[in-house]
């Protein structure tokens, strides 16, 4: 924007580590989905608590990224929670297949061109 000074900030980013856990309320606050929608995603099995079976569910930080993606898809593609769960499941599968392909390519004896 014209005339606005650019901020030049030195940041020391915090690593999201997999041991950091969030409550469902924290997850809802950071992702833009309601707690009810998060419970529904849990019931469809696309969001798995770090402590399944316990009364107060907690979630790994990795869930933040999944749920943020879910939130974008819900808003931008106007999906209901059921369609959203299916979309997430399929995107997860694509992601894991791509990761597997990348690992196989790395380990391949000869470079696959």
């Amino acid at each position, binding site marked *: *924007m014209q005339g606005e000074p650019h901020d030049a900030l030195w940041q020391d980013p915090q690593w*999201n580590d997999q041991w950091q856990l969030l409550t469902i309320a924290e997850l809802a*606050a950071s992702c833009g989905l309601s707690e009810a929608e998060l419970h529904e995603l849990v019931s469809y099995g696309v969001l798995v608590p770090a402590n399944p079976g316990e009364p107060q569910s907690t979630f790994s*930080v990795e869930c933040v990224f999944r749920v943020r993606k879910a939130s*974008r898809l819900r808003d931008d*593609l106007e999906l209901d929670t059921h369609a959203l769960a299916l979309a997430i499941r399929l995107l997860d599968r694509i992601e894991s297949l791509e990761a597997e392909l*990348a690992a196989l390519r*790395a380990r391949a004896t000869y470079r696959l061109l």
Partner: protein
Amino acid sequence: MKYKDYYAILGLDRGAALADVKSAYRKLAHKYHPDVSKDPEGEARFKEVSEAYQTLKDPEKRAAYDQLGSHQAGQDFRPPPDWGAHFGNGGAGAPSFDDIDLADLFAGLSGGRQHGGRARADRPMAGRDYDVTAEIGLEDAYHGTQVDLHLGVPDYDHQGRIHHVERTFKARIPKGATSGQRLRLRGQGGKGRNGGPDDDLYLNIVLRPHALFRVDGHDLYLDLPLAPWEAALGATIEIPTLGGPVQLKVPPGTGAGKKMRLSKRGLPIPQGGEGDLYAVVHLAMPADVTKPEQALYKQLAEASTFDPRAHFSQEARHAG
């Protein structure tokens, strides 16, 4: 203010029904949504399409947009003098439209809902989180690096109008970052509204492909071409690693496909330790074999009893 032709962006006539607006948007959103599409232009295209849809799906905003008249896309224009009075900016006098983006103008319309459609304008609201992808080289991942990130984040002026300001962040990436790793910069995303909390900036690390090394987690793979005589007789070979060259002893009789592990020569692991480097042997043949070399190969062929395809005849016997 630059004019954007929202109808053309969605491929619609100006008289298109709401159902057509929805259907055109959905078709384009499926194609370009950055979470779904692999199209490198996807994100930019989706932004345009989404902006057009946010305005045209809302009857009030669409009416306001139509009142702006029809201009060439990209053409500089000013809204008609009484435009603001009709559409929610009443009493604000004649606001300056020079530095406002068309999208921000419509986002600021009364009754206009924020993206996501839930928040009321007067309620403290969190800013919008940002996802940024930083592509870094393997050397940078090995040593740690600093990246400059440029992004347009929304800001609100004293009249509560939204502006986009470009901000530059310097983010230090610790050594050992690998593809898919995420960093969070607290409170550096969108600015909260009405006293709401500022939001976070999420940084997604992607490693740029390297000319020599392939990456699997924190392990690295390197193709190691050997001349036939090096494979046969063994050799001490200088191997490039991210930490500088090292000497690798190749034992005599090393076959193609053998993986030789160089322990702790991979990427550092942030929690401690290092991945390994694997040198994967393959046999390289010179394209041109000179006469004296041919004579030596012939001599070798005569002296050797080695049959590389012994298992062929064995398997054939089993099959028979």
